[in-house]
């Protein structure tokens, strides 16, 4: 019975069809082979955990930049190769960050970008060093990141050491112009590597500009109540409160000091994690006249202003995590262009010799020394009526500083 069954296709038709299919199958890889392979980039941020907002902002900035590079034709020296982002969540944990590095290495990444938190960045870049894979720090304040002698780590933004130097120098100038109104300070910092390191530097350098440190107060992450710390500050009665902490704690401390009407000449933060447009817009009274020394975009850059519009149109805030991650992807694309290859050694050499111009930032040409860009610098901003304006350096300033700030009535 079965042998009586006939195929609904004739033998000639079958052979013709099979031939076409075979030719198609054989030809496809040839056409496919003409396409340059995508360059895989591992992007690791804490998109869950207590700094999830900042991590998500970093991821958003990096993916936006990848899209822009690809839309602009990819890496031209590599035949228009596209960047392919592999997104990783460190969950704010060192071991998860390292596991992401291992996983992405199996997937063949050419470089990593991350990790926001310094401890995660320290361990993750160490893991990447085993594979000689370049690791570009977008956000991560600790100077330990670039002082370990690892050849694969590159940080375009200044670390907390440089930011403190810049911040102290400007505060000294401001105070001098205001006839030395500020004579004492209290430093409040988160108790991790970033906050402690910054606070230690501040405490050692403030006396050099005539400001005495009355107290250094550390706090945990997360801290959900700053009433006691505000009371300690009130009893110490300093002229300035200097803060170094992450988003939520920064905002909460500022709000508590405002609610308790603690009179100060200034709230002056170095790398204040919560000093951004979101804070200024949502809490204009609290943020009014607060000063922050931080990574900030170049307000005179057309490219930066256009990107700001796009980011805000997408319903996001234009925070430093966004434009630093964006800048780092641009730096990577530029290095790939010069290397003409995703080969790790060539890419590392291209990064090492990079003279990339970070258009979004107020930086000079990039020059890496032991992985730290010496062309980077911070800016000083002040919140004013729900907005943020640059007050220094002079060539980027959008308004004169208000110092000391008016007292509570």
């Amino acid at each position, binding site marked *: 019975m079965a042998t009586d069954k006939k195929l609904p296709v004739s033998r000639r038709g079958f052979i013709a069809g099979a031939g076409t299919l075979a030719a198609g199958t054989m030809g496809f890889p040839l056409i496919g082979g003409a396409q340059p392979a995508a360059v895989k980039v591992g992007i690791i941020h804490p998109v869950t955990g207590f700094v999830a907002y900042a991590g998500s902002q970093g991821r958003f900035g990096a993916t936006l930049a990848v899209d822009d590079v690809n839309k602009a034709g990819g890496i031209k020296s590599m035949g228009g190769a596209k960047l392919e982002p592999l997104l990783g969540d460190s969950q704010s944990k060192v*071991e998860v960050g390292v596991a992401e590095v291992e996983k992405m290495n*199996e997937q063949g990444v050419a470089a990593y970008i991350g990790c926001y938190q310094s*401890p995660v960045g320290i361990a993750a870049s160490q893991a990447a*060093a085993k594979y000689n894979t370049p690791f570009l720090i977008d956000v991560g304040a600790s100077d*330990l990141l670039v002082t370990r002698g690892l050849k694969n780590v590159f940080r375009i933004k200044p670390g907390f050491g440089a930011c403190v130097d810049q911040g102290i120098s400007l505060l000294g100038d401001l105070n001098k112009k205001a006839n030395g109104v500020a004579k004492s300070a209290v430093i409040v910092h988160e108790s*991790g*590597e970033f906050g*402690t390191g910054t606070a230690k530097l501040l405490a050692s350098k403030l006396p050099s500009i005539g400001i005495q440190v009355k107290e250094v107060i*550390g706090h945990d992450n997360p801290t959900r109540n700053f009433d006691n710390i505000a009371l300690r500050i009130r009893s110490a009665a300093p002229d300035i409160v200097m803060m170094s902490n992450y988003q939520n704690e920064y905002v909460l401390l500022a709000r508590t000091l405002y609610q308790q009407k603690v009179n100060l000449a200034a709230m002056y933060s170095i790398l204040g994690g919560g000093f951004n447009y979101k804070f200024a817009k949502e809490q204009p009274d609290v943020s009014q006249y607060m000063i922050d020394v931080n990574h900030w975009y170049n307000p005179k850059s057309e490219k930066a202003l256009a990107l700001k519009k796009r980011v805000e149109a997408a319903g996001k805030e234009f925070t430093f995590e966004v434009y630093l991650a964006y800048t780092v992807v641009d730096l990577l694309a530029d290095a790939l262009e010069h290397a003409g290859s995703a080969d790790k050694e060539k890419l590392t050499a291209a990064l090492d010799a990079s003279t990339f111009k970070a258009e979004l930032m107020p930086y000079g040409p990039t020059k890496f020394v032991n992985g730290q860009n010496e062309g980077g610098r911070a800016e000083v901003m002040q919140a004013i009526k729900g907005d943020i304006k640059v007050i220094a350096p002079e060539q980027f300033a959008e308004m004169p500083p208000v110092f000391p700030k008016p007292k509570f009535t």
Partner: protein
Amino acid sequence: MRHLALAAALLAAVVYPLLVPNYLATVGMLMFFTAFIGQSWNISGGFAGQTSFGHAAFFGVGAYTSTILQVTYGWNPWLAWPAAMAMGGLVGAGIAVLSFRAGLRGSYFALITLAFAEVFRIAANSASITRGGLGMLIKADQRPINFQFKDQIWIYYLAFALCLVSLLIAWWLTRSRFGARLVAIRENEDAARALGIDVFTEKVKVLALSGAMCAAGGTFYAQKYLYIDPNIAFGIDKSVEMLLVTMVGGAGTIFGPLIGSIALTTINELTRAAASVFPALKNVQPLSLIVYGAMLVLIVARLPDGFASLLGRRRHA
């Protein structure tokens, strides 16, 4: 039959890193490492019934002791390791003496251990010898003599060996008079005392053993990641992790922490990997934590005695 299954599992664990890529070897290493520190909790919390919320105190003491000896005093990390274990044991015994002398039991003991871990964390944040919140960095020098390995496989085998040792200790507890005394204390402390067991001494001994084991885990962690800070070393999430793998696997059983660690690490990795497998999930990684949490609830609700109860063996008694 059981011996055959054990031999097959042992062989599979030995061969596993030779067959899989580095990432999966890392996942395997994490499973064994978590099982090891989970077992340290199980020995005091599961076998002796002394539930602790602050085992991170021992973990951190181990991590900091070996790191300080190595970085500040130039010790070889292999020599610093037993010193860290001794310190963990001492701290375990110290906490036990202070707590049990004061007659603390059950939830009161659990809370005092949590408080001790917090005290250690704050002390590490403030002391100059630990470099406070700046943390301590161990110089990368990937030679076995430095307890650092270029090839991931060796750190896997080390974690595997630690896990095996911890299983042997748990097995010994099920066979020894010391283990029997601990079970008696767990089931009814007053009855155990009436039987002539020196409850105080036995509890101090088990806390010292548990503390030394957990401290060994702390040193292993520091050597693997080469950086510790007070939150990493003494953070509450480490205490929760140890407790969780034991509860999910089966407290008071030999294989409970290992089973719990395999189950939780697998769930965690699978839910995280979902974001890479399904492009639509790329930006919703928090979803993996929701799924992880939901699965935990299911496990606890459906298997209150842990996965080990599926093997037909309830608590060791």
